[in-house]
């Protein structure tokens, strides 16, 4: 047992305590705040598990974006009538007991996993030369399991369509109702003027290093989305109306390039989503850049919510 073990144990206890407070906190607001903290702690946990790519994604999407979304929702729900239906104590105790059993069973199972450790890590590393990439996670996402990644982009688009579908009929293709401040706030305006140039550089850099080091389209796209949201919240720019052609093109650009590259593989390589030998890396980097743009647009629009008002012609 090294000192790292105790550090890990401390981290785990902290994660569990904050996690529990998101469940047991009295006020939804406290729970949402706790969740943001929880996301950041979890990112540290992922670093300790040597999964830097996941740590970045968790911090950016799991903690940051989800946290923003939930905090925004909590703020609006303050006006809601409180809900007084509570489950009785016996029911809660029984449920708690069952859930504890599930957790204990799961933990036991994990500890009892076979000693012989099967893994695809060697295969993933060996084949990485064919992709020209240096980051094995990028290799999995864009070569070995590219189909999953492509479909997951479609999932994001469908989620956005679902969010948009909640607009009132007459507000379709209007402007998302992301409105935190009634009038421009000078402090926020200042931030929204000086941060985005830096953020855009960082986002593009993230995407670019993703081929060889931790990072990639998801992380880069999230940063770009955050910058855009900042500009919108500070009211330097309006949110775009959801029917604008450039917005729609931005949404589908990534998946469309991905799909086209996959289909090109039918002609230029040995099949769908295969890359021509020697050219895999340029293909993948192109796909990643297109995806970064689409992810930025989709995430920002998901956070902005359904359209509220019809665009003034």
């Amino acid at each position, binding site marked *: 047992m090294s000192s790292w073990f105790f550090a890990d144990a401390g981290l785990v206890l902290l994660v569990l305590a904050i996690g529990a407070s998101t469940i047991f906190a009295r006020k939804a607001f406290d729970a949402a705040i706790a969740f943001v903290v929880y996301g950041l702690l979890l990112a540290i946990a992922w670093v300790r598990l040597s999964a830097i790519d996941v740590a970045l994604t968790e911090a950016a999407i799991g903690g940051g974006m989800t946290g923003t979304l939930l905090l925004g929702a909590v703020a609006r729900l303050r006006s809601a009538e409180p809900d007084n239906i509570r489950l009785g104590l016996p029911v809660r105790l029984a449920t708690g007991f069952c859930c504890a059993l599930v957790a204990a*069973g*799961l933990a*036991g*199972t*994990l500890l*009892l*996993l*076979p000693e012989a450790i*099967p*893994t*695809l890590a060697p*295969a*993933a590393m060996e*084949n990485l030369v064919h992709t020209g990439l240096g980051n094995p996670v990028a290799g999995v996402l864009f*070569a*070995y*399991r*590219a*189909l*999953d990644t*492509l*479909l*997951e982009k*479609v*999932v994001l*688009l*469908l*989620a956005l*369509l*679902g969010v*948009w*579908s*909640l*607009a*009132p*009929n007459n507000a*379709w*293709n209007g402007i998302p109702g992301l409105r935190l401040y009634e009038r421009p706030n000078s402090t926020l305006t200042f931030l929204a003027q000086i941060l985005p140039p830096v953020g855009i550089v960082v986002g593009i850099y993230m995407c670019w290093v993703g081929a060889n080091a931790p990072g990639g389209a998801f992380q880069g796209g999230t940063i770009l989305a955050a910058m855009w949201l900042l500009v919108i919240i500070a009211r330097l720019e309006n949110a775009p109306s959801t*029917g604008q*052609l450039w917005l*729609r*093109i931005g*949404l*589908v650009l990534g*998946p*469309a390039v991905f*799909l086209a590259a*996959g*289909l090109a*593989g*039918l002609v230029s*390589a*040995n*099949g*769908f*989503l*295969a*890359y021509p030998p020697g050219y895999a890396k340029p293909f993948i980097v192109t796909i990643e850049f297109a995806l970064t743009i689409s992810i930025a647009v989709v995430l920002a629009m998901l956070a902005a919510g359904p359209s509220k008002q019809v665009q003034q012609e």
Partner: protein
Amino acid sequence: MPDATTSGGILLVFAIVFPVAGVLLSLVVGGRQVERIALIILPCNLILASAIFFDLWRSGSQLIYIVGGWQPPLGITLRADGLSAAMMVTTAVVICAVGVFAHADFDTRAQPFETRAPFVFWVLLMAIGCAMNMIFLGGDLFTLYVALELLTFAAVPLVCLDGRAETIQAALRYLLFALLGSILYLAGTALLYGSYATLDIVLLSQRLRVETATLVAAVLMTVGLFAKTALFPLHIWLPPAHAGAPASASAVLSAIVVKGSFFLVVRLWFGVMPGLLGFTGAQLVGGLGAGAIIFGSVVALRQKRLKLLIAYSTVAQIGYLFLMFPLAFDSVSSQLQSSGALTGGMLLAMSHATAKAAMFMAAGLIYAALGHDRIAELGGAARAIPMTVFAFAIGGVCLIGLPPSGGFLAKWLLLDAAIATGQWSWAMVLLVGGLFTAGYVFIVVAGALGSPHEPLKLRVAVPKYQEAAALTLALLSLLLGFVALGPIDVLQVRPGAMMAALR
């Protein structure tokens, strides 16, 4: 010997690429063209599904496509066996019929600009086609997770397309159940990957050992999929969601979407781990099915609204689908046998898909024509809109299982399996369930045949093409029984490696 891409394998890729391309194109080209795009993509989907089906039938062997040339376990394989091909064709047919039917409610060219509900409906219809194809063809458990999520995100907004508060509540409840289901499924895949370092279905079936982690994974995944399939007692989200949606959406949700997670249960237990369920497990699953049949039927009988009755009937019919588990259990080898019971179960799924879609469409037409769907006041409907009521009745005949419907053949096969394995109690459940079904179908049809209290005035004329769509599906479900004369053997086409693992 590793699998290799077969000659027809490219069809499998197109079955996924086509609808994805349709979704992407629709978002850019814009709302007024979306219906046209869908009406190109959906028939193409049907043609592709039929091509895959006939390829299988002709060659008698499965289709395989290795995506990107990366062999599993590192890469992903698409596979079409008999079950997937048959389900694909059924799904494609139903979705095409819904496409025809939905024109009345979701005409994208009715307005000079893009409108909300039609735009969303057509894109999601294509997305459901894509997700179902992926579920039928996916050869990797994580790809199937993504496909399940694709299906969820395509289905949930359909529930609340009209935007009323009750339907939004229903959609939210549905979403929460579906998310719980998929996260449990994901936990199972994590454990399986940790034990075997592969999620490829065929490789898993070869490497599988009976040990704690595998059992826990199987339980987690199955419970998750039960929640998504709305198997009793995890059904409470289904009736409000399916009954509140617009008729075209209800038809897709009830006929197609629940079959996605059901298909994965079948894949998991018959394909990946046929030896793991054991006698008790099989009886337990059958017991849940029986519970669903009794509960769903009794509640359906007490409904006052037609759409709710049909939704509860779905709860009951889902129960039927799970009866095949105890019936397919072979006590000698203590494995699930991919034989008559499986064929019967899948056939039941297919005939339920066509029949239920027809019934929801008919209910939608009845509602549109009468302005309500109160069962007690249906009198005169049979005279006013005979084709619609006829379609409903034929769908009902198939659900009850009268010859020559697909439901009859399916239940025959299940009964045969029950007798062959000496499990009389399940035969009883089958027969009693049929009586219940006959009861609630009879209530509706008798009501519609009765004379009205006051002269019936139709609010709108029911378009002929909508009646035709409903009737076509109903007749298909009726004629499905005739597959016994021909392509039913296709259902027995299994991955070669899997068969070898079974022996």
